[in-house]
């Protein structure tokens, strides 16, 4: 390539800015990644993604098989089968819709089908609570799905591209759920940089299923009946794939930084003012917004506080996260989910953090919080309150024996 064409490419490749929501960002990423099969079944708030895909296809901007199934169960099944024949596949759901697809969700990892699902996090409601809670995606946390939580529309777009690259890596071949907080991400539009297709093409190789491709030229049987003589080995294979994903994720983020010039630092978690922090909060998703605001205020008041946002929940970077958190005088963990009757009556993340710290030589007190359930806003006073409790634990050096519910009416 001579200098002149190189310049032309660079100019043509400049990013464009668009005002889109987190779900729309996933839809745009699916266009950039040239996803082959997109299966859909409407449920709020995930449906904002499928609507945008439909629009892109209708406008002639996107070329994909777009299949509206008759239920989430079929929706995930179709995506699974598409992935098995070598098609890049996307689906998604929310709340109880995700649960309705659970049979397909549960078996996807062992079959090593690298499809992506957007989870528009929603309360597991009966009476129609559309707001965010993380229990829907977390219900599948142990099954071999990779799970990532994003906190901006930009990250939703970028992570979708990264997730395809990692999921479709032969060393991994696992499905990935991209969690976007209902309402706060799925229904709020923000300015997002849309990279040119050429960059995406450079970053994301073709999905090559190789010897696992279900095709007449590669005759195989998928999922023959297995018994106790086989399943444990299959589980161990899935486990190895998840272990491999850690390194593959690092590679993908490194390449992403090189090609897209956006640096996410440690792929697994985001650190905010942690360098000199005495105490930190830990959480996932859009909770980061009020927390970051409060941190800046408290810092102005002279308090050394920080925040760690867990991005990749599976695989979980327990080594580095444990090393980081053990430095602080106290750690407050904010769960936008619950795990009724669990140790300390806490949410899911808090007990993951406790387990992560257990292997560390120094263990700061852990304070667990449950807040923002059912889509309730986490307010500035809520965050201040959580920092105060965490500060108290740092002073006494002791972990409270129970979890604090913040923002709940007594």
């Amino acid at each position, binding site marked *: 390539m001579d200098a002149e064409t190189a310049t032309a490419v660079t100019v043509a490749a400049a990013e464009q800015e668009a005002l889109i929501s987190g779900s729309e960002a996933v839809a745009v990423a699916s266009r950039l990644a040239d996803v082959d099969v997109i299966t859909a079944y409407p449920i709020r708030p995930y449906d904002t993604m499928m609507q945008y895909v439909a629009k892109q296809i209708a406008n002639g901007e996107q070329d994909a098989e777009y299949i509206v199934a008759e239920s989430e169960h079929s929706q995930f099944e179709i995506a699974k089968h598409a992935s098995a024949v070598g098609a890049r596949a996307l689906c998604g759901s929310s709340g109880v819709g995700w649960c309705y697809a659970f049979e397909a969700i549960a078996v996807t990892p*062992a*079959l*090593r*089908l690298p499809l992506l699902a957007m989870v528009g996090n929603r309360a597991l409601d009966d009476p129609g609570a559309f707001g965010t809670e993380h229990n829907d995606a977390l219900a599948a946390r142990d099954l071999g799905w990779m799970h990532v939580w994003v906190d901006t529309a930009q990250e939703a777009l970028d992570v979708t591209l990264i997730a395809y690259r990692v999921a479709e890596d032969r060393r991994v*071949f696992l499905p990935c759920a991209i969690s976007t907080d209902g309402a706060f991400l799925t229904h709020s539009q923000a300015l997002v940089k849309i990279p040119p297709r050429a960059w995406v093409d450079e970053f994301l190789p073709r999905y090559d299923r190789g*010897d*696992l491709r279900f095709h007449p030229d590669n*005759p*195989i*049987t*998928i*999922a*023959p*009946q*297995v*018994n*106790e*003589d*086989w399943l*444990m*080995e*299959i589980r*161990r*294979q899935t486990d*190895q*794939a998840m272990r491999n994903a850690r390194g593959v994720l690092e590679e993908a983020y490194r390449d992403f930084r090189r090609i897209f010039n956006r640096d996410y630092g440690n792929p697994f978690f985001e650190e905010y003012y942690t360098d000199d922090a005495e105490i930190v909060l830990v959480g996932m998703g859009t909770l980061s917004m009020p927390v970051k605001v409060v941190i800046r205020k408290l810092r102005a008041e002279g308090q050394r506080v920080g925040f760690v946002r867990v991005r990749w929940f599976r695989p979980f970077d327990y080594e580095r996260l444990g090393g980081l958190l053990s430095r602080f005088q106290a750690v407050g963990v904010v769960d936008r989910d619950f795990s009724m009757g669990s140790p300390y009556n806490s949410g899911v993340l808090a007990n993951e953090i406790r387990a992560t710290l257990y292997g560390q030589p120094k263990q700061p007190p852990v304070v667990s919080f449950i807040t923002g359930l059912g889509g309730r806003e986490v307010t500035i006073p809520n965050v201040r309150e959580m920092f105060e409790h965490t500060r108290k634990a740092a002073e006494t050096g002791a972990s409270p024996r129970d979890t604090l519910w913040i923002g709940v009416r007594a």
Partner: protein
Amino acid sequence: MARTISVEVVYRGIFQKTLAKNICRGIVLAARKEGKIGIAFGRYGDSPERNGIPAKNFAIVAPDEETLQLSMAQYEPAESDITIAVDDTLCKGVESWAWYGLQPINEKIREGGTLVVTSTLPAGEIVKFCHTKAHPYRLAVIPGIPSFSGLWVYKDDHTDVRILGALPKVCPDLVSLDAMLAAIKDEWKSDLKVTSARRSYEQTTTRTVGPGEGNPEVPYKFDLPGWTRMREGVTIEGMKLGEPIQFGGQVGGYRPQRNPYFKKYTTRTMRPVIDFDKCIKCTLCWLQCPDSCFDVMPDQTYDLNAEACCGCGVCEAVCPVDGCITMVNESAFTDNKSQWEMWKTNKDAYRQWVAEKIGCRPERSHGFRYKGQYEEQVASMGAASGGGQGGGE
């Protein structure tokens, strides 16, 4: 000194499920009469409850609870003191699950243990089916045709108590006759059943099967790969395309590849015998066989691959020529050789073989449908149902 005693009942899925369960329950309840403790359990799984597939039930009797725990939370005990085959054709071996290969019927029997078989054949004939063993064991034959019933019905022909009655004789350590009879009386509330059991006790004789006696064939088996060697994604390689058949100077036809890990002929209680002289090459057997057991031969007849045939009888039912395909009791055979090759090699000898096989044990004992079954049933219902209300013609 009291010891743990393991009893294995090998049965045919669905048809003998209740029979096997009754036997194992009876053993544990009888042992209880003597203050022992036990469990009765089925080989948990899916396939074992399909028509005719060899399946297993177990009864373990131990002197006390702690000893019994050694045998609990297991699918199968490592060894058996008594193995009971409630159908003599099971003596050819069992593929109780896909992926295990072929397990000889006597595989688990410990030295000096006993194989109990219900059969009308003499013991010498049954031994020929059983794979050889390095150590001696005993064989007890309880005379009678195998007791087959359906999914929802149980044919109460006393096979259960006849087997139970024989057990104190073949293994006095397991339980005494008195305890067994008392348990049968309690469980079935029937003096007739007690009588059947007692008679069986009196009539049962055993003989010793010496080391190396029996079928010398090495049963097919394979190693289970570790997770690093297994294909990923719960996938297995598909069958490759088949090949034309060579016989003598002739090349032609087509033989498909078949699953080398699960041949499933142990599911069979009857096998098709083909009279090639009568075949009109209509293709129906080949088309309709649910397991693709027929090979297309160079002369366009269809030969049975007896390793793949589960004995369902469909080919017999669809063959349009009278007496061309006949289902024959599996106990009439000792190998899976090609019938077509026999026919090609010596037609007269083959014709004689066909006549002999068809004449041998002609009873239709198993639970699959067979040609003419409904005609027989309708006829046996008598005049009331035979009248017909037609008038259409």
